[in-house]
């Protein structure tokens, strides 16, 4: 009997773990549109334009009450952008009559939760937050509703102004679903809520006290990071960068410098994606990176996500941080951290030793976006939600009042209210607007993004924390083989 008891208990536990995997097969995904020409997303921010008036009046008699009484469900990742939306939900419901069931969860598990919800094809969520990289996976799986079905139709308010989005940002959310093709063409899979460039934030007080000039080149950054090791006793260090074994470690500073160095993740050869992480540029850059982290990074780098990087910068334990611009900006707002007011913003340190100049600076782009579930039963109401919370009026308010400084709208970026609101952050506007010129997604769009970048991050961890490899070249050669295997089933047209 006890044997049966033990067997039953063990089976019950396993059954619990498998509870989420018993759903039926996913329906056919035919959302991928025909291949189109790749487009370059590295488009400069347009010259200052006149901002549309922040007038909430219904232009052209647009009927905001068309879906009065409907109810939609929204799942967001906890973030400043999501906070701003949450604050205005009441006004949205008042204006449209659409009730919103809103929930949010921490970023750490957000995408895993979203994966489960979307893969069930139940339409339990109508609108959700996503990133450009994740949209490559969701779009090919048929989880995303193409938004050209709504943009420019009579379901869109004339005030909404699609053309006001910064081209490089809105194009980052377009893709033709052909692995290896650049983003910028094909369907519009999501709308931007905010975007981030990855630049250097430094504590001017700490650098000044240690007689160090703000680094402009990669070499100066390495030298400064080493010099600042334990500048304030045990645990203090020069440069905070991410180190967890996932895509989050690769996409901000590492990928920005990797691209600036001239390296690529994949190239198309004979109709297949081929990893280029063992190219001379990639190896040279990674050698630099390992040196930088080992000798100038956090002692517990391998456990650091963006939260820990920001916390150390705000606590005055890290002298510099290379991460999303808004991470440093948030630590600088009055009352947000011990070191608030001491931050200043640099650009992307470029490697002079590799023959690069300031003109070669590249920043990898992250776009927090809003997408519609292809299985939603209330797509029209969902679209009303999306256009309301990406409208010029809302974005001007969230950019100025709610610290959503990485605005995707040209009219907001060029508005005096916005410029005034970020004026206190030394160098921020200059850095953001300059780096934006060369900001783009430097990853190759492909549906195995999560796997390939996870393996990449694990290799970096091994290089920094172990003696597993005799050289960076050996590690990157092995990583190349792994990445090639992961994408081996992809056919590039």
């Amino acid at each position, binding site marked *: 009997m006890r044997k049966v008891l033990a067997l039953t*208990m063990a089976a019950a536990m396993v059954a619990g773990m498998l509870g989420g995997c*018993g759903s039926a097969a996913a329906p056919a995904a035919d959302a991928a549109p025909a291949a189109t020409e790749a487009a370059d997303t590295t488009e400069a921010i347009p010259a200052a334009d006149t901002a549309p008036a922040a007038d909430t009046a219904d232009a052209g008699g647009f009927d905001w009450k068309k879906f009065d009484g409907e109810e939609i469900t929204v799942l967001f990742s906890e973030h400043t952008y999501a906070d701003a939306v949450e604050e205005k939900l009441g006004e949205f419901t008042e204006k449209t009559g659409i009730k919103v069931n809103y929930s949010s969860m921490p970023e750490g598990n957000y995408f895993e939760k979203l994966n489960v919800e979307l893969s069930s094809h139940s339409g339990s969520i109508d609108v959700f937050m996503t990133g450009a990289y994740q949209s490559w996976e969701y779009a090919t799986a048929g989880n995303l509703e193409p938004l050209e079905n709504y943009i420019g139709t009579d379901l869109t308010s004339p005030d909404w102004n699609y053309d006001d989005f910064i081209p490089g940002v809105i194009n980052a959310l377009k893709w033709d679903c052909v692995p290896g093709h650049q983003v910028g063409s094909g369907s519009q899979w999501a709308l931007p809520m905010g975007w981030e460039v990855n630049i250097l934030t430094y504590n001017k007080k700490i650098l000044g006290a240690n007689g160090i000039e703000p680094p402009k080149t990669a070499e100066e950054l390495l030298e400064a990071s080493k010099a600042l090791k334990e500048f304030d006793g045990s645990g203090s260090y020069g440069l905070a960068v991410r180190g967890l074994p996932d895509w989050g470690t690769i996409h901000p500073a590492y990928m920005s410098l990797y691209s600036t160095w001239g390296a690529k993740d994949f190239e198309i050869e004979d109709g297949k994606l081929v990893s280029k992480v063992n190219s001379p540029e990639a190896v040279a850059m990674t050698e630099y990176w390992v040196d930088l982290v080992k000798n100038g990074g956090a002692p517990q780098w391998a456990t650091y996500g963006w939260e820990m990087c920001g916390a150390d910068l705000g606590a005055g334990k890290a002298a510099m941080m290379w991460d999303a611009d808004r991470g440093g900006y948030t630590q600088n707002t009055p009352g947000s951290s011990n070191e608030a007011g001491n931050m200043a913003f640099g650009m992307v340190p470029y490697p002079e030793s590799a023959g690069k100049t300031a003109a070669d600076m590249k920043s990898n782009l992250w776009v927090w976006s809003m997408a519609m579930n292809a299985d939603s039963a209330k797509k029209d109401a969902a679209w009303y939600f999306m256009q309301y919370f990406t409208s010029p009026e809302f974005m001007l308010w969230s950019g100025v009042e709610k610290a959503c400084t990485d605005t995707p709208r040209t009219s907001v970026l060029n508005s005096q209210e916005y410029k005034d609101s970020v004026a206190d952050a030394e160098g921020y506007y200059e850095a953001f607007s300059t780096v934006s010129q060369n900001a783009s997604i430097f990853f190759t769009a492909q549906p195995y993004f999560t796997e390939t970048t996870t393996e990449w991050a694990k290799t970096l961890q091994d290089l920094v924390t172990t003696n597993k490899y005799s050289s960076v070249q050996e590690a990157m050669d092995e990583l190349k083989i792994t990445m090639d295997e992961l994408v081996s089933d992809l056919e590039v047209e």
Partner: protein
Amino acid sequence: MSAKKNSNMKSEMNKVPLATRVRPYLIVAPSLIITIGIMVPFVMAIWYSLTNYSFKLPTHKFIGIDNWVNMLGDSSFWGAVKISLLYGCISTILEMLIGLGVAILLNNLNNGLSRVLRVLLVFPLMVAPVTATIIWQLMLNSSVGIVEKLLNIFGVYNFPWAAAPETALMTVILIDVWINTAFIILLVLAGLQSLPKSPFESAKIDGGSAWFNFTNLTLPMLKPSLFIALLFRFMAALQEYAVIFALTKGGPGDSLMSLSLTAYQKGFKFQKFGAAIPYILVLWLIINIAAKRIVVMQRSAQKQASGLEE
């Protein structure tokens, strides 16, 4: 004659009220439903392990034992088995030893202080493992953590904790012990308080030492309770996921990628359920074998404690 007898029996059966005849089936029904509820996902899991089921694919198809062959040929699988076993064994042994020691001390003290301690010691069990891990992550942080400050007093600086492969396993086990030792204490304490008093009184009259009492009376009679505690903790420790995920997500490198974490990563992060499920089924097999063995040992200890063997 026989036909007549059968007819009589049938007639007598019809005289039994319907409620009485149905009652045995009603009694069994809940167990049957629960068993089916358990077995259906389990059987489905075995089926999916033989398919290429993935969130990324529009449909799935039968691929035989490819997922199993790939898993067995992957060096990271054997690493995951090793991590799961090391984590399960070391954390359970430590928790059993510390839990037994503390429970005996509390039982012997039996005063106001012990009553207060009994309440306080349960606190870690009331905290969600992920929350407990985040608290420990902050405490162990080399920049702002209190543990770093304490170690500085002894001349230890920048101890890597979970950030280095050599110390990462030790760190997650430390947190597991902090969270779960209270569970052992509670079970063992309950076991100690249910022991009969007379053998101890006889031993006292005969001048038995404390060590004699412990090895010849307390431990043999307590063994059934100890095995129950061992059963629950070992099974839970083998499945451990929350502490590792919250602290390092399985890193650095693959140094903490247990079977649970590997299955989670393949299933939920990479969206390849067909490839993930064999890892869970192997974990189930390990847990099943271990649980069976512990139950046999518990039954034997129960008999010994009841004087049925010797």
